């Protein structure tokens, strides 16, 4: 059984239809990426999965169980974590507290501390600033913190929206390594990334979205080699 399945999902913002009949499956242990230009519906798809937006039609199933219509906090406890684009961290809390909030629903103390250590190893900058409040971090540091928090929650399915946004070149490779690591530890990942080439390099499969519809799907390798995808999204 697929971990997550979307079937014929329509989502609206007011009277504007943002998603048209989106269907996709994500299997346990996969990294799946969504490709498409801005406004194609990638973020809306993620929001529909995490319950921030409710679909007007269609099904969202987690291990066969319907989750569309559930409130976002319920969906989080079911094991889906959404790291939204735009660095939504807690601005008035310290870096450490932000990280521990990521582990809010866990109760395996030693493992949590080990995970924190791992976050600090990946982002030494966060270790230096662990007592600073989130709001005083720079944009890129907040991005690191948002990803670190997602790592701490060890969800079944992690929805990552543009994790490399605003990061220096030297960190972009690190981020993709982090994504691989998180995946290896048993977290399935649905990834949105403007840097489609990099995303397809880490992903197993991908879906191409245009104006709210799935227009192409396939293995990451096939998409990387597809001339249409190369021209439209890889800047080749």
């Amino acid at each position, binding site marked *: 059984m697929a971990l997550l399945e979307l079937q014929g999902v329509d989502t609206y913002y*007011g*009277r504007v239809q*943002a998603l048209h009949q989106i269907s996709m499956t994500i299997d346990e242990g996969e990294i799946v990426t969504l490709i498409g230009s801005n*406004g194609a519906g990638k*973020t809306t798809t993620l929001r529909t999965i995490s319950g921030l937006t409710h679909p007007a039609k269609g099904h969202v199933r987690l291990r066969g169980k319907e989750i569309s219509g559930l409130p976002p906090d319920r969906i989080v406890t079911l094991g889906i974590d959404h790291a939204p684009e735009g660095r939504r961290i807690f*601005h008035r809390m310290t870096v450490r507290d932000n990280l521990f909030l990521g582990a809010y629903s866990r109760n395996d103390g030693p493992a949590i501390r080990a995970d924190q250590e791992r976050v600090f190893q990946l982002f030494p900058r966060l270790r230096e600033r662990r007592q600073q409040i989130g*709001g005083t971090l720079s944009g890129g540091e*907040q991005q690191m913190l948002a990803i670190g928090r997602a790592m701490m929650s060890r969800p079944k399915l992690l929805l990552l929206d543009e994790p490399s946004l605003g990061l220096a070149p030297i960190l972009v490779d690190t981020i993709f390594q982090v994504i691989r690591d998180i995946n290896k530890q048993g977290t399935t990942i649905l990834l949105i990334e403007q840097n489609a080439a990099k995303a397809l390099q880490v992903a197993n499969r991908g879906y191409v979205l245009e104006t709210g519809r799935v227009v192409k799907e396939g293995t990451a390798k096939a998409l990387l080699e597809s001339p249409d995808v190369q021209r439209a999204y890889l800047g080749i």
Partner: protein
Amino acid sequence: MSRPLPRNDRAMRWAMGTFKDRNRTIYTLLVIGVLLWPSIADVTTGGSGNHLVSTAADAGIYVLLAIGLNVVVGFAGLLDLGYAAFFAIGAYTYGLLASGQLSGSPLHHEFHLPFWVLILVAMFVAAAFGAILGAPTLRLRGDYLAIVTLGFGEIVPRVFRFLGAGSPIGNWTGGVNGISAIDSPHLPAFISGPWFGTSIQVVSPFDFSDSNWAPMDYYWLIILLVAICIVLVTNLYNSRLGRAWMAVREDEVAAAASGINTVAIKLLAFSIGASFAGFAGCYYGAKLSLVSSENFEFIVSVSILIMVVLGGMGNIPGVIVGALTIYIVQFFVLTNLPDYAVALSNLVGLGFLNQSSPGWVGLHDEVQRLNYIVFGLILVVVMLLRPQGLFPSRIREQELEKGTAEEAVFDVREATD
């Protein structure tokens, strides 16, 4: 952050059209109501409608105040909890300069300046106090302003009360007795007509102190003042200043980076709001012929704020409807509620409830005690049903709708400050 598709242009224009139309409908109904009210009052009371007309004029004062506070709260997004202080300043300005009060003060000279001059003076005095209060506080964060205005609202009536007989600097304000025997305004001319049961004629010169005619005169005078204010405030809203207020309300940092002096523009809103309260206070003093510090307590500030919020912050017709609604609830429904309850209990055969007994003061007084609970309940119910207010501005409506469904726009202020 979501990236919904661009909104269809025609749908947008259509939507904006109905919003405009809704406001137009409200204005049309208000104008019809205003024109018919004296006749309605006369017909329903069998020819003695003066009281109802006079009450309507009092309601007009609150409409003025709500329109003024709307500039501060609705347009510029500043929370003013002591608005009644400026109302008091306006009323006392008129009271002091248009009565015999100052003959007993260390000045030993009384002033009787005309109403039309003093209404401008009162505006400027109130605006000046607004500027003095706002200049140091508007640099601080929004919450501080609320607290400072709250304090100011408490201080001003006390100062007026204190400056009576026996104060170290002499009797200026009449203290607890307030100022009485204040001059009535005069008009150069006034048109009489069928609404008095007479033929249309110009009566000249016109004196508001004629007790038979006074309620009607004050009624038309406040209608005139309200109409002027509506036009001016609407113009302001549609000007570059209105736009700048909106920008400051949404994002101060971005507004400052666009070259808007945020402190100055907020100060302007604050002072303009204060000047409207001064304006209203002047009329209030003239109509009542008495000003007393106890008429400007905290509850007045709160009532006006409720009018603005309940009517629909930022939208002038909405605020007017809010002011009238709250006024009717406070001064008709709630004051008559005990009588209604007594009448009802007699009607259904529960008349014994009207007797007082140990632990029961009688239905009339019991209901009177519950007045503010009923008021609170009404407010809670309305705000639950229409959290954006009765007739909100287009923008506020959107903010609330989308704000809950889609979570508020990400606030990055702390990240860059």
